[in-house]
């Protein structure tokens, strides 16, 4: 009896629970299988806890039993939207370890395909982001434009998504004679279509109200969490690997790094759109000057890296992707580790979303461009 009286007199003895919502693994707006435990107070988010691992495939462990030219096709399946850049990272790591220099033609082809892949990844990001925000037509417009790039890929590589075009030493096939014409036609077409993206989504007052000032991450936090890619550059973090540690044909091109200072969702959005424009400029600088030559070096049948640890970074569409290979002289690597950009980007979500509403959380997650197989590997 006295306990009951005590509970009703002092309110801090009343047991309260937090209102926890589970944005479960299957959910239309989390891109892939991601489980978010959101602690709410009314509509305000107090804490976001991501649970990952639903699509873990053990890629790094599988690489330990494969030869070096067989590792490449597994990286396609990690961040499938920038598959070519992942493949290139592994091939560059192996080539730097063996200290061989690929022909210039290979470098140009790799860079052009990189930039095309970057545009197609950003197109898919834009489509999915528009759909998350509620403007479903954006999904179809982005994918319609992406079909042109995928047709170019199918013509050259034979595959549209899981490319496996790079091998250590070069590429698998030569480009076809009408490759340059197709790429130029696509660039002309896309330069007319990209302003439509701005008219439909970026300029829209509903969209700007939903994204400006939302999810601000300061520059110190960006560097501390290691958020790279357009999400990091939106806060002013100059982290473009293509500028700081150039590889392939990037030393031969002039381009700008898209930086912004506000660090909110709108800045991340506009950084990506401006990156699409910049990618088209890079392709135009390279497409007419592809040098003649071999499309691959003659490599030995069995590739063995000298003992040691090697690391290579590339700039994928999500950020800074790194491949670490430790070799002990045999034909299989001893340990392969991938540094995925999505992993670091995602764990800054808690900092960005504190104190905002659930609808803002969806907007922030969309602008971070998370691809779950990249995070889980």
């Amino acid at each position: 009896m006295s306990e009951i009286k005590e509970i009703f007199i002092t309110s801090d003895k009343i047991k309260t629970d937090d209102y926890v919502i589970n944005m479960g693994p299957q959910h239309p707006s989390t891109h892939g299988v991601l489980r978010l435990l959101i602690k709410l107070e009314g509509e305000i988010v107090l804490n976001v806890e991501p649970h990952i691992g639903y699509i873990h495939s053990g890629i790094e462990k599988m690489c330990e039993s494969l030869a070096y030219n067989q590792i490449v096709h597994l990286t396609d399946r990690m961040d499938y939207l920038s598959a070519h850049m992942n493949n290139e990272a592994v091939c560059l790591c192996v080539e730097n370890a063996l200290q061989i220099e690929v022909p210039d033609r290979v470098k140009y082809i790799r860079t052009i395909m990189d930039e095309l892949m970057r545009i197609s990844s950003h197109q898919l990001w834009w489509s999915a982001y528009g759909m998350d925000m509620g403007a479903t037509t954006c999904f179809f417009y982005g994918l319609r434009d992406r079909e042109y790039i995928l047709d170019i890929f199918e013509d050259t590589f034979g595959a549209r998504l899981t490319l496996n075009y790079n091998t250590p030493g070069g590429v698998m096939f030569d480009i076809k004679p009408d490759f340059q014409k197709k790429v130029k036609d696509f660039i002309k077409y896309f330069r007319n279509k990209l302003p439509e993206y701005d008219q439909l989504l970026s300029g829209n007052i509903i969209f700007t109200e939903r994204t400006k000032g939302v999810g601000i991450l300061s520059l110190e936090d960006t560097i501390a969490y290691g958020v790279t890619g357009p999400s990091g550059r939106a806060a002013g973090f100059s982290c473009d690997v293509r500028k700081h540690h150039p590889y392939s044909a990037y030393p031969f091109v002039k381009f700008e790094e898209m930086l912004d200072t506000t660090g909110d969702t709108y800045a991340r959005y506009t950084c990506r759109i401006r990156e699409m424009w910049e990618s088209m400029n890079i392709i135009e600088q390279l497409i007419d000057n592809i040098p003649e030559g071999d499309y691959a070096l003659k490599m030995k049948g069995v590739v063995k890296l000298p003992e040691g640890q090697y690391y290579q970074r590339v700039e994928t569409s999500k950020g800074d992707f790194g491949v670490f290979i430790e070799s002990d002289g045999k034909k299989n690597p001893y340990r392969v580790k991938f540094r995925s950009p999505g992993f670091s980007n995602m764990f800054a979500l808690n900092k960005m979303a504190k104190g905002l509403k659930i609808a803002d959380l969806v907007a922030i997650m969309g602008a971070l461009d998370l691809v779950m197989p990249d995070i889980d590997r």
Partner: protein
Amino acid sequence: MKSIIDYIVSIFKGLGTLLTGMKVTGKYAFTPWKNVTHQYPDVYPVLSDRFRGEVIMPHNANNEHKCTGCGICEINCPNGSIEIISKMITTPEGKKKKVIDQHIYHLGMCSLCNLCVKSCPSDAITMGQKFEHAIWDRKLLTKVLNQPGSKIQEGIKE
């Protein structure tokens, strides 16, 4: 007074952006004959000649193929989708030669990475263009690529 003017101007600017967005979708709505739908089952898509649909072993008119049974494709395959079963026969000159008995290909496990085709020294296998592989019975996914009764072409080096 300035805040009232800002308020009114912001309303008109906002409405203006909305109307621009509507103009973009309206442009597509009033030209419905320009749709981009590819009517798939009626119209078969045009695939490139390098399209990776499945691995096939082309046979010429005399039912001959080029596979020597060397096993290099089996070594290069990352996940064991190819099994080579070879046998020893005696040639008319009396020498013992290894020839291919069965080139077993597990389509269900293949990741279409193209490494087997690239590494074949005699260009025996290539990538086919068929992509409609859905079937009801999983056993049909294990195929034998060399057709029964076929033998190797003359003049293929070992």
